[in-house]
């Protein structure tokens, strides 16, 4: 794995064969499921940032979700396995900046999360200026909609859930517990 900030890439050659390979790589990547949220793909989660031809290899730029997410290495190995089938020379580059945000999760991805009983993340509002605001218990907290019945009468049970990217909630209407994908 190469850790870097951005890829220095050459302009892609624009011939038809190359576009076909590029499209095939994206199609293949769209089939790579997130290991911890198998209903969504790594493309829908915004983990794949770029695919580009550099010299005689294809550079797939990915970005980690959380610094300590145990899925990161599994995702890389899944990408490698999937793209091996295409027979091209592929290199995976990890880009730290810009930092991954749940705002990059595509609308289809959000719907799939909801269908799987996971409340999708609300837009990221916790901008830097809030860092100098005190974190009072009485602060306003985002309204979370129950993915099962649509009610807003929900309450947080725990800040963390089954994976680092989720929190545990309970619906006060249908009484079902559910996961919230944390806005990040």
């Amino acid at each position: 794995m190469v850790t870097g900030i951005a890829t220095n890439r050459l302009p892609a050659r624009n011939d038809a064969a190359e576009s076909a390979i590029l499209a095939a790589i994206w199609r293949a990547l769209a089939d790579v499921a997130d290991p911890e949220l198998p209903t969504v793909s790594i493309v829908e989660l915004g983990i794949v940032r770029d695919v580009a031809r550099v010299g005689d290899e294809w550079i797939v730029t990915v970005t980690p979700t959380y610094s300590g997410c145990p899925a990161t290495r599994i995702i890389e190995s899944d990408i490698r396995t999937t793209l091996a089938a295409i027979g091209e020379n592929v290199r995976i580059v990890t880009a730290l900046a810009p930092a991954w945000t749940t705002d990059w999760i595509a609308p289809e991805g959000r719907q799939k999360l909801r269908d799987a009983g996971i409340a999708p993340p609300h837009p990221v509002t916790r901008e830097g200026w809030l860092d100098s605001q005190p974190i009072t218990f009485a602060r306003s907290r985002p309204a979370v909609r129950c993915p099962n019945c649509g009610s807003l009468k929900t309450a947080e049970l725990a800040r963390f859930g089954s994976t680092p990217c989720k929190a545990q909630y309970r619906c006060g209407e249908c009484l079902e517990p559910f996961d919230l994908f944390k806005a990040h």
Partner: protein
Amino acid sequence: MTASPPATLDAERFDYLLRLADNGLVLAQRLGEWVGKGPVLEEDIASTNVGLDLLGQARLWLAYAGDVEAANGSPARSEDDLAYFRDSADFRNLLLVEQPNGNYADTIARQFLFDQWHVLLLGQLTLSRDDRIAAIAAKAVKEVRYHVERSADWVVRLGDGTPTSHSRMQAAIDGLWMYTGEMFSVDATERTLIDAGIAADAAALQQTWQSLVRTVLDEASIVVPADPFMQGSRSRGGKQGLHTEHLSRMLAEMQVLPRSYPDARW
């Protein structure tokens, strides 16, 4: 590929990266000690998830430290080499984060005092002239914003909870307060890097930190300790490798496996 860091100040930069890394590494190890024995299942999971974020951040800092060292002609050390094969005098973490877990109020108090500082520090580091430091900080600060919300909430829950939880939280804050001065001390290493636009000026964060912490402690009905002796700017401490006895005991457990079986893989 990696944006190459300016080739100057490598010794200072290496030391500073260890300070950033070791705070995360040591606190992650402490939080890991709660695995399987948290007070409630949800907190067991939360503590270790916070630890996981901090460990991930520490790996990014350590990897960069290893690269800086190697660029300077020293033999390249991996993140694992730096984590497992340095002794306590070579660790650069704050004294606060190496303090034992104690009861859950002690753990939460330590976490809140650190988180509130960490979020301010990382916010400043996103502006670093060193692109790689800025990139790691921009990633980490998002995680730490979530950490401080959780630890602040627990300070209030326990401080404003039962008489027992209140007295334990008060005792925890009283006991840890003396270690907070060190967070704002700036030594020659940091001064050089601050002047170069690489490090954050920790001293400039003190007032903001105090006011944010006071607000939460007030809400938790916890009395802010009157300033006792503090590990402060004129003394040397964890950032210079002078640690409390707790660190070497913790490292003994953390490092025993790779030191006993240097080729161990899993």
